[in-house]
């Protein structure tokens, strides 16, 4: 029952299981505010044995759907900088086509599964490590705070606290420290400044004013970022928001909500171009796309609702562990293919 034949992948899958996987990844995407492509593509390969190239192509088509859905909402809220998105697109459209061509070459050489899995292992190690380290640090800060609160109640003595004045001093310092490192919510509109942003703003050569984003940046930076993210999207079937959004915030100094809205907007076109390229190479299974989309749509709605209640660092740490498990599973496949285990 629910068996569906995927004509392009040339295999039978249980449709309900694919929808469930889509729902689970969609839930995570909604919960953590990520696109989820970096989990979906390897998961399709690991769970159902779908060839990596078909998983990449179909996931990219699915990203075209989810990003257009998100872009609609952000455009309505005025969070899209069209000028910035157009500049990014100059690079990302070329990048995604390069990515598609690389995948095509790897497929002809019979190296697609192995190489794409190797790149995914590296990518997941980076994402998983950042997530685990960030959440571990946040948990430590929270524990220190709890330690101080316990000391007030006489449950625990802490170093250098001998009087109530000592305690007030330590407590104030710790509280300020915690506020400084607090997990940033996307609603936050604080202007982020760092030496890179300052240096880029000082560059007068070929700079362009972006009124919606409220920044002035050299014209060649967004296409370069787009080129890199486009290649990743074409090769790996990821939206690349986990690179593009922090880059826009911490390198270009774009406000967080505008960065998210602009990224989603450019991703609609980038992923659509990539989807057409992959479909022409026989990597897009429209049945698979529709099944994943059905699941991820439902899952993302629940994930978004759950994110209002579950924001703790512990849950981020556990997501990091889930990424680590997926990475280890891929690593085992890679080592097995190379004959090392």
């Amino acid at each position, binding site marked *: 029952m629910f068996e569906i*034949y995927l*004509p*392009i*992948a*040339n295999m039978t899958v249980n449709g309900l*299981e694919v929808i469930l*996987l889509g729902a*689970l990844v*969609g839930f995570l*995407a*909604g919960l953590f*505010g990520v*696109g989820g492509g970096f989990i979906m593509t390897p998961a399709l*390969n*690991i*769970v*159902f*044995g*779908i060839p990596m190239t*078909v998983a990449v192509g179909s996931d990219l*088509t699915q990203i*075209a*759907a*989810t*990003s*257009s*859905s*998100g872009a*609609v*909402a*952000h455009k309505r809220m005025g969070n899209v900088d069209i000028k910035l998105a157009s500049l990014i697109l100059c690079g990302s459209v070329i990048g995604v086509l390069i990515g598609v061509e690389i995948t095509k070459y790897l497929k*002809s050489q*019979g190296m697609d599964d192995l190489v794409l899995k190797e790149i995914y292992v590296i990518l997941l190690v980076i994402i998983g490590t950042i997530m685990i380290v960030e959440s571990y640090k946040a948990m430590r800060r929270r524990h220190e705070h709890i330690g101080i609160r316990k000391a007030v109640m006489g449950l625990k003595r802490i170093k250098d606290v001998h009087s109530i004045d000592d305690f007030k001093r330590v407590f104030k310092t710790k509280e300020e420290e915690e506020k400084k490192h607090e997990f940033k919510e996307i609603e936050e509109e604080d202007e982020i400044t760092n030496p890179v942003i300052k240096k880029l703003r000082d560059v007068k050569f070929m700079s362009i004013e972006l009124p919606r984003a409220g920044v002035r940046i050299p014209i060649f930076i967004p296409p370069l970022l787009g080129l890199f993210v486009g290649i990743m999207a074409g090769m790996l079937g990821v939206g690349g928001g986990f690179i593009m959004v922090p880059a826009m915030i911490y390198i270009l100094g774009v406000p967080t909500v505008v960065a*998210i809205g602009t990224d989603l907007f450019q991703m609609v076109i980038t992923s*659509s171009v990539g*989807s*057409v390229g992959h*479909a*022409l190479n*026989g990597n897009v299974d*429209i049945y698979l*796309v*529709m099944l994943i*989309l059905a699941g*991820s*749509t439902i899952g*993302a709605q629940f994930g*978004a609702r759950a994110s209002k209640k*579950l924001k*703790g660092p*512990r*849950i981020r740490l*556990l*997501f990091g562990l*889930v990424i680590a*498990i997926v990475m280890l*599973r891929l690593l085992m*496949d890679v080592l097995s*293919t190379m*004959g090392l285990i």
Partner: protein
Amino acid sequence: MNDKMKARNITAWVLAGFLITAALAVPVSAGGGGSAPKDKTNYFDITIVPEKSMFAPGDVMKIKITVKDKETHEPVEGAKVTVNMSVYQGHFTETKEIRTENGDGICVVEQTTIKSILDPILAEEEGNGIYVVEKDLSTKADLGGVTLKVTVEKDGKVDGVERVISFMGVDPWVYAVGSTLLAVICGLGIGLIFGGIKH
């Protein structure tokens, strides 16, 4: 710790347990341990290059297979290269007239064929480690895939790789643009209904 915080922590841990169990268990339960590496070869590097990225039903499918020695990277000549094909036939029903022994009855047979496995084809050697195979792509499906299992045999050494090549009855550009547009329209619809998937 107040009750609200307790409840929130319990929910977080239950969810965590669910996520980790799903990440660990699903690959094991589905297909007996996930995807098995298909292209592990021991003696030969085998490259499969189809004439076109996408074939149409009824096309003559021409495939070039290059075989090189894994250690020396020299072209392998005089090998026996066989190709096993399975073609997606689509879901369809057929009505057949079958005379019974008495000769006075007609049976209507409905059948659904998903995949048909063709007889192995021996590839022709072109020299310099290149082998070519040609086959009519006769299928009743408009859209599907052909699974090729290429086996190379020489001096008792045997290696094989598997590849899926797609075919479609419609113009590939129509399929490519159509499927992408369909996905985007679905996404826009979801965006208008739910106010956008949260990213």
